[in-house]
């Protein structure tokens, strides 16, 4: 490929980062104190819990699936682990809660994986059911909030080391880890193959059902970690924790360039989606925009992202089309 084409392709592929830079520069110019190290850290910190949900959704979408239950999974997981540490097994040391979060999340995700991958039910319907179940089970377990809990549970989502919130390396580390899995392992290539064309993947000897099962289990584990970060961020576990955030998780993945049709997109792109939403959110908060309007703005950003992704795909095709 010629040099110019290569540059064009890179511009198209990494467009999200240009947009983030643009948004960042815009807010830096218009809002005093936006461009400070502290503020950048804070933007990342606020974005981290939702970010983990976005990663989970991105993994599902890459495999040609969708998971509507991820945010409720995060909330239910946090509530289960909270109640476990406070009521059911108070003798458990607090740090076990950190591991339990990921495990319980993975377990709840595996339920989806079982019904989609093994029983071959429609992923939309399965995860809609578990969305309702997990959502209301959270209320059933505790109406109100768990306020007193072992301090260790709050460290990953709220603690800092040397001024840096621990949630930030978790967010970025997870993006890098997922990039490695998706783009450099056989398993990751199977996820993309199934997302791209599951019939062909089956004929090529890839076990589609098993891969689906693991996709949902991994997404569930990511939701569990998200639950942990939400807990640390809020310093409590209310029964409304993470409720309804699935829509923003979808938005983040799509803004980050992950295709709804499966197979296309990357973990790093999804991180970009998280950051763009974080930057814009922070900018709006600092200008004291009305919260309701901020919600409206999220919708417009998603719409814009869909349009941009469409043109982006066309541009990309034009560059890649053999002459």
């Amino acid at each position, binding site marked *: *490929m010629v040099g110019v084409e290569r540059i064009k392709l890179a511009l198209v592929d990494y467009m999200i980062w240009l947009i983030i830079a643009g948004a960042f520069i815009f807010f830096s110019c218009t809002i005093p104190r936006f461009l400070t190290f502290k503020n950048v850290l804070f933007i990342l910190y606020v974005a981290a819990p939702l970010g983990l949900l976005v990663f989970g959704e991105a993994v599902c979408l890459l495999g040609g699936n969708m998971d509507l239950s991820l945010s409720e999974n995060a909330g239910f997981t946090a509530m289960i682990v909270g109640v476990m540490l406070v009521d059911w097994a108070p003798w458990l040391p607090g740090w076990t809660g950190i591991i339990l979060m990921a495990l319980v999340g993975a377990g709840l995700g595996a339920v989806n994986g079982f019904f989609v991958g093994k029983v071959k039910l429609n992923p939309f319907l399965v995860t809609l059911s578990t969305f309702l179940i997990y959502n209301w089970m959270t209320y059933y377990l505790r109406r109100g909030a768990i306020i007193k809990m072992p301090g260790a549970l709050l460290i990953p989502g709220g603690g800092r080391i040397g001024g840096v919130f621990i949630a930030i390396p978790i967010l970025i580390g997870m993006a890098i880890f997922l990039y490695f899995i998706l783009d*450099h*392992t*056989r398993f990751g*290539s*199977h996820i*993309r*193959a199934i997302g*791209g*064309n599951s*019939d*062909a*993947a*089956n*004929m*090529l*000897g*890839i076990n589609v059902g098993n891969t689906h099962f693991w996709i949902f289990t991994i997404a569930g584990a990511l939701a569990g970690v998200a639950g942990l970060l939400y807990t640390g961020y809020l310093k409590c576990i209310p029964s409304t924790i993470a409720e309804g955030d699935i829509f923003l998780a979808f938005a983040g993945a799509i803004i980050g360039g992950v295709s709804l049709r499966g*197979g*296309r997109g990357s973990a790093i792109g999804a991180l970009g989606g998280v950051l763009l939403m974080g930057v814009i959110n922070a900018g709006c908060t600092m200008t004291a925009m009305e919260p309701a309007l901020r919600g409206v703005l999220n919708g417009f950003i998603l719409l814009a992202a869909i349009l941009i992704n469409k043109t982006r795909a066309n541009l990309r095709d034009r560059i*890649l*089309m*053999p002459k």
Partner: protein
Amino acid sequence: MKLKKVKESKGAPLVKMEDIHKWYGKIHALKGMSFEVCPGEIVGLIGDNGAGKSTLIKILSGVLSKNRGKIYWKGEEVNVSSVKEARKLGIETVYQDQAVIGCLSVAQNIFMGRQPVKSWGPAKVLDKGKMRREAEKLARDLKLHIPSPNQEVRFCSGGEIQGVAISRAMYFKASLVILDEPTTALAVSGVQKVLSFITRLKSEVIASIFVTHNLHHVYSVADRFVVLSRGEKVADVKKEETSIEGLIELQLRKGVTVT
């Protein structure tokens, strides 16, 4: 109708299917089919739609399971219960819709399901460099005009996609390649390309089963023809014992099958 027996050619058959039955619910799709292929042989499997061609080869390639009958591979009885197992034996299938993943690169498509990996500490990492190099070599060998192994398959022409599918068989040293209607969706130049792929396979002593209902495409390359009708074998003839007219007649006469 007479069933012409094919004389045993030298050596054992590569694969032998014996008395294969397949039911889809109440429909008896294969009624005791027997079928064999010798090493390096090109067999044209012909018959109308619904004759049982697809069912037969899907059983051989591990996509479907048979209800009754035996399969022998190089003289040993085998149980081909999955695509993976078929591939392990050395049976590679080039499907009608070619089983390619459009959004992945040519190299990824050739190696999908059995990519080379290298160790990276405890982790096994895809060896992308090796895949690219090998894919480039295969494309050169097969004279595919693909600008780069990184090209996504959705930009390939029908003939090039066939080439990608055939590259799999060549690279992984298959000994039997099943081609399911490989020429149906192709332009004339694409058909020529596929026919040259098949003769290329023969020169490397790779047997192939060419499934088609277009006799004209298969006639020039095949060594032997097996004609199916309504789940039964109605003819099994060597090329020198028949003519294209004779085969057309056999195909048409299927209305009066042996009972």
